């Protein structure tokens, strides 16, 4: 036999014994019919067992009910019928609670209590009452005219079992430990004594108003939660039943014991549900408070760890929240900032140290317009000890029901970044100056010697001197291109876009390159360019066109270099078509890479720096366009394209 099987059998045996004991005790209260009692704990025990341990304990319920009834009243047949009803009641209640009410955790929410009352207390108990009373009526153990009165007793008795017993077992079975703060022990003792005293006074008939117990239920529920509420219900039930059976208390005055117990049962149901509801509400509120606190702590931890400054304001621009980084950057403590107006406590200046007026502050604009502002222009904040530092920030409105109720600002001290940018600029300047100065002398003096400024020189020196001049030229171009790339990568290239007539720019470049083209016997052919305005930096546009057309001339031995334009949507594209040597398929991928030279010195062509197309493409993209290869075939020529945004006439 497996371990699990053994456990299941053991479990069933234990539950069977408890069922039988509680069933015999319950039927001791039966008065209207030996098989129908107003006090029936086994229903609650069965439901709790099925919810906690699962359907595997169902056999113990069926068998327990059978044994209890067989040993009390009725025949085997009626006992089987009643057992079937009792078992089915448990199964139906369990199924409904599991499917619709979170199973054994049904009391974790107020909605769960309502569903438990409906499915377990009201509906499933009808199954047992109907089957049970029908069985004993058909078996001759009850008169037909007594059907409904017996049914009502059976039903209410089972309902009581579910409402009073099941919650106790389900809640206490989750964790048997009780967390008692020692400070609360006095409270617990007083409450416990209070419950006994008050219940006794009420049910002895001294002050026979049963619903005076309700305040006790609320008190216990508030202080001791669900466990306290369910335990108190049991105490009250025991005391109340005892005195009611002895003819004392608010419910003992009824004509029959059965009626007294039924009224008491209904009272106990109300008491139990009230206590449970209060306890669950209290639990829900505490959970929500804990969750809020946790979220608050998480938010605070996040705010502390963020390096950027965060300032939250209300709709008047007063500070409601700041993080640690803000306090560090500004030199103010949290207490000094909260409640202050941002524009008063954090002065803002422009580059020239002019204070920016309140009306012009981004915060004022955001509060007014409800639109987010993100600035990349550097402004300055002034700290508590009058130190100004550059900042960039994003200011976002907080909008509720269409109204601006506050703002959130995230800002960053740009001092270090500025220093890095300045260092980059200085480096580029230094390199630029120190490399170019000696090159200036080499180039200049070589050209002067070749010109004859220093007199005649031997014929043998002419070629070497010309080679020096060409090499110098290359080196200067390389330095210029490297500096361009450095500036591009450092984001230090400035663009001054304006509206340009593209035709004029192309004319200018073609004119400057015509001499070189003619020397090679290459004809530059220009299609009449449309009178279109593009929005671009003039010098950079010239640089890109110069590079592309110069390349076309360089790689064409004879034939034509054609230049055409086409407008498509918001872009104007210039096509440079040559009839030169073309580009091999495997080289096309490398075309726009850095230091990539294709078809150069190996084919007797002047070597470039390998950066021209990379720079041209980068510049074009920065201006909102692009440079790309349309097509090329080895030996047949290439077509390059250069696009720029057209001026938006609107």
């Amino acid at each position: 036999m497996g371990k699990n099987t053994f456990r299941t059998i053991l479990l069933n045996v234990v539950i069977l014994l408890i069922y039988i004991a509680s069933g015999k005790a319950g039927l001791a209260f039966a008065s209207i019919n030996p098989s129908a009692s107003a006090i029936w704990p086994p229903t609650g025990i069965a439901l709790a067992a099925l919810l906690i341990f699962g359907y595997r304990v169902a056999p113990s319920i069926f068998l327990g009910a059978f044994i209890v009834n067989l040993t009390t009243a009725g025949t085997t047949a009626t006992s089987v019928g009643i057992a079937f009803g009792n078992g089915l009641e448990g199964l139906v209640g369990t199924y409904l609670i599991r499917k619709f009410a979170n199973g054994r955790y049904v009391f974790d929410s107020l909605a769960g209590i309502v569903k438990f009352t409906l499915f377990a207390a009201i509906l499933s108990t009808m199954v047992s009452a109907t089957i049970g009373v029908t069985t004993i009526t058909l078996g001759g153990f009850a008169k037909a005219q007594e059907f409904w009165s017996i049914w009502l007793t059976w039903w209410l008795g089972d309902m009581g079992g579910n409402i009073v017993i099941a919650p106790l077992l389900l809640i206490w079975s989750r964790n048997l430990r009780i967390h008692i703060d020692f400070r609360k022990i006095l409270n617990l003792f007083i409450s416990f004594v209070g419950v006994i005293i008050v219940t006794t006074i009420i049910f002895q008939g001294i002050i026979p108003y049963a619903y005076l117990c309700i305040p006790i239920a609320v008190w216990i529920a508030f202080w001791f939660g669900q466990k306290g509420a369910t335990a108190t219900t049991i105490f009250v039930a025991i005391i109340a039943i005892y005195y009611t059976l002895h003819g004392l208390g608010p419910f003992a005055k009824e004509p029959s014991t059965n009626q007294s117990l039924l009224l008491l049962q209904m009272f106990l149901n109300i008491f139990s549900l009230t206590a449970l509801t209060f306890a669950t509400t209290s639990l829900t509120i505490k959970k929500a408070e804990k969750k809020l606190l946790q979220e608050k702590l998480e938010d605070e931890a996040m705010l502390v760890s963020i390096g950027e400054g965060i300032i939250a304001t209300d709709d008047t621009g007063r500070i409601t929240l700041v993080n640690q980084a803000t306090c560090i950057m500004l030199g103010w403590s949290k207490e000094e900032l909260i409640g202050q107006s941002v524009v008063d406590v954090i002065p803002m200046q422009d580059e020239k140290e002019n204070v920016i007026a309140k009306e012009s502050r981004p915060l004022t604009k955001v509060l007014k317009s409800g639109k987010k502002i993100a600035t990349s222009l550097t402004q300055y904040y002034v700290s508590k000890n009058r130190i100004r530092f550059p900042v960039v920030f994003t200011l976002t409105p907080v909008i509720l029901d269409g109204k601006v109720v506050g703002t959130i600002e995230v800002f960053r001290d740009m001092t270090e970044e500025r220093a890095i940018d300045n260092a980059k600029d200085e480096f580029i300047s230094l390199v630029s100056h120190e490399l170019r100065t000696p090159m200036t002398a080499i180039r200049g003096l070589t050209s002067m010697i070749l010109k004859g400024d220093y007199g005649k020189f031997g014929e043998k020196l002419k070629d070497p001197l010309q080679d020096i001049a060409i090499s110098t030229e290359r080196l200067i171009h390389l330095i210029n291109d490297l500096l361009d790339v450095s500036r591009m990568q450092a984001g230090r290239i400035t663009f001054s876009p304006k509206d340009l007539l593209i035709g004029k720019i192309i004319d200018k470049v073609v004119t400057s390159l015509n001499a070189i083209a003619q020397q090679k016997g290459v004809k530059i052919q220009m299609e009449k360019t449309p009178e279109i305005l593009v929005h671009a930096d003039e010098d950079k546009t010239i640089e890109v066109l110069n590079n592309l057309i110069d390349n076309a001339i360089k790689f064409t031995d004879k034939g034509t270099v054609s230049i055409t334009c086409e407008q498509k949507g918001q872009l104007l594209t210039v096509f440079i078509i040559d009839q030169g040597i073309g580009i091999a398929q495997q080289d096309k991928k490398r075309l726009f890479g850095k230091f990539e030279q294709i078809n150069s010195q190996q084919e007797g062509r002047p070597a470039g720096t390998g950066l021209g197309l990379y720079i041209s493409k980068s510049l074009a993209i920065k201006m909102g366009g692009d440079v790309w290869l349309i097509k090329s075939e080895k030996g047949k020529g290439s077509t390059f394209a250069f696009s720029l945004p057209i001026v938006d006439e609107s």
Partner: protein
Amino acid sequence: MKKILLVEDDLILIKMYVAEFRFNGFEVKTAVDGEEGLKLALEEHPDLILLDIKMPKMDGLTMLKNLRNDGWGKHVPVFMLTNLNDSKSVSDSMGSLAQRYFVKSDWDPQQIVDEAKTTLRIT
């Protein structure tokens, strides 16, 4: 004979430009820093000033600003010679204080002489 004032701290470049301008019939005065250059400019009243930017004691931009505060200095044509960054970023920061901006390494001395002749209307 037109007079040129060359303000440049690199001795080799001084020799080169002086030679080229003299070959082309100019009288050339030289200074090695902005302070000396400003003094010489106000004394000699050259027809054209070639002004380097990066120099000790007083840089070219400061010298030019001071020069433009003078009654005569306000009008004298000035060519800025630089190897810093690119001429556009220099000219952008200078506004219209100088007539021309040249990246020295991109221009042969003869080309600068030709530009000077154009500015001074010499054929």
